[in-house]
């Protein structure tokens, strides 16, 4: 084990995979100088500018070239800086990467990783703050990963690079500095679709992912002080999502709250809530609930930005209501 930041855990994962497999390479704007957040610091020096490559500000070409390079036998990791910018390459991801294998009758594999950081990050405003994971969960062919801890950012990024499917890999910008214990094992892989139980508890199941997991965990501590034991589940990936673990938890607790940073309307919480209602609706002690952002863009000024955050206190209030 080593104590690493979320950012350095991802950097370590990529460095290990670059060293392990000569077909792995990374490309994106500013990678030669470490990338916009420093996630690639030192890698161009170690692996050379061909394998950790700068790119023009051409999102469609970055992702489209990755599709061509993946179909031609390499394993590109592409950096989009912000999930907001990746929208300039939606055709390349949704129409090309996600569908090539199927529409060509299995002749193609598209083993690429699209790193597109998500989430609110103080005063980054409407075009640098979105959490768009549910968009991609809707698209057959894609895997969607949202790691919340340093250990997961190592094990999941490595699993993404080794995966033969295109993976939308969404790190949360507010977590870069978060430190935690990270396994040294160069083959440490976190499989997709296997949730992490953050906290055991018998009164209510709270499902979350990405940075919101930490808000929920803090709320669970407060609730414990009030005698309410919440089970907290970090989904880790939302496609595939660990339906079995969520259903097992709710079957035991009889209560489900889904919490995410993304807009609640048509967010992935709706899928989870609907699934639980379909499967366990008659056995629930209280109707399922979702907490997400209101359907408004993220504002710049702190009070405006905070107005669309799901806070610890909002989670505590929702659970308290559900326990009545």
């Amino acid at each position, binding site marked *: 084990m080593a104590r690493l930041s979320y950012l350095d855990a991802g950097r370590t994962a990529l460095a290990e995979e670059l060293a392990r497999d000569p077909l792995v390479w990374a490309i994106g704007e500013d990678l030669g100088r470490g990338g916009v957040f420093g996630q690639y610091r030192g890698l161009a020096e170690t692996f050379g500018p061909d394998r950790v490559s700068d790119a023009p500000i051409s999102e*469609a070409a970055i992702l*489209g070239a990755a599709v061509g*390079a993946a179909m031609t036998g390499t394993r590109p990791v592409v950096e989009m800086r912000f999930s907001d910018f990746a929208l300039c390459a939606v055709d390349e991801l949704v129409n090309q990467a996600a569908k090539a294998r*199927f529409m*060509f009758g*299995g002749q193609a594999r598209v083993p690429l990783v699209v790193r597109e950081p998500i989430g609110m990050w103080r005063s980054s405003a409407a075009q640098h703050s979105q959490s768009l994971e549910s968009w991609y969960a809707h698209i*057959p062919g894609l895997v969607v990963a949202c790691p919340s801890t340093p250990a997961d950012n190592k094990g999941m990024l490595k699993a993404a690079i080794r995966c033969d499917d295109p993976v939308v890999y969404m790190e949360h910008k507010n977590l870069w500095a978060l430190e935690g214990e990270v396994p040294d094992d160069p083959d440490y892989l976190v499989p997709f679709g296997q949730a992490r139980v953050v906290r055991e508890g018998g009164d209510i199941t709270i499902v979350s992912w990405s940075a919101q997991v930490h808000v929920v965990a803090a709320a669970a501590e407060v609730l414990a002080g009030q005698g309410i034991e919440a089970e907290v589940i970090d989904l880790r990936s939302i496609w*595939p999502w660990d339906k079995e673990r969520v259903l097992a938890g709710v079957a035991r607790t009889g209560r489900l709250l889904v919490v995410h940073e993304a807009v609640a309307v048509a967010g992935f919480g709706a899928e989870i809530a609907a699934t639980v209602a379909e499967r366990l609706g008659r056995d629930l002690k209280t109707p399922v609930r979702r907490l997400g952002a209101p359907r408004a863009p993220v504002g710049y000024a702190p009070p405006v930005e905070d107005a669309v955050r799901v806070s610890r206190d909002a989670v505590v209030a929702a659970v308290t209501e559900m326990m009545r």
Partner: protein
Amino acid sequence: MMHRIRALEQVALRGLDDKVVLGAIHPSIGQEAVPVGVMSHLSADDLLLSTHRGHGHTLAKGASAQAMMHELLGRVGGNCGGKGGSMHIADFEVGMLGANGVVGANIVIAAGAAHAIRLCGEDRIVACFFGDGAINRGPFLEGLNWAAVFRLPVLFVCEDNGYSATTRTSTMTAGAGPAARARAIGVPAVEVDGNDVLAVDAAAAELIGAIRSGGGPRFLHARTYRMTGHTGADPATYRPAGEVEAQRANDPIGRARDMLLAAGVAAAEVDAVAAAALAEMDAAYDSARAAPYPPAAQAFVDVQDIGSPAVEAY
């Protein structure tokens, strides 16, 4: 080969009338000289990215006509098992990495395939075909710039038939045209009469030679004409009276025939090639009609390894 492409599409259009070709097809009748002239300089190792109007590219790259016909009819035995149809034909065995339903999308994919070739230190090249309409899409700029910046082995081929679907391209395109745009990005470009198969062949030889010797990307602007509508179902009434008639004398197959006869080849020999092509495609069509559709379970095959619908019980 031009006869084979022509015959394949004529038979495919019959399939539309017979209601066995169920989806849209985009014929390239009148444009056959471009893929034939270019592809004669590519080997099976070289890669090809094609378009929605890609039957000619695919056949010329070496795909089986019978498998293509099965694919057009959505049948077992098609290149993609009947799951792609005309707009998504691919044959990776012969380096054909796919037609594409999105105009211009293949340009950046081609750049990436060439990028992988360069990373792996291989000496093959990529050919990427698109129409004149594609030069107004962002991926045209992004893909050509990418190929130029990284000095990648790609031949970009703009098949300029004058129409962007049903709109005259000239009415919607500013500036001096495809070759000028390529040159402005730093990609050397050659303009050619795309209905003269020998001229295309000569231009392609020169450009591909430069690419193979490490010169980076090249651009071929081939002026041609689409004798049919945008799709097999488009009567193309938007074209001025007489335009198609005037183009008949410019038909690449007719012009090639004239050249052969002038060179002393017997007319019967040329006619035999045409008849053989038609017979081949008729047989492919009969084979396709007799083949079954893929089973419904194919809907869940080759979606993804992780979280696939086969595992997911909906």
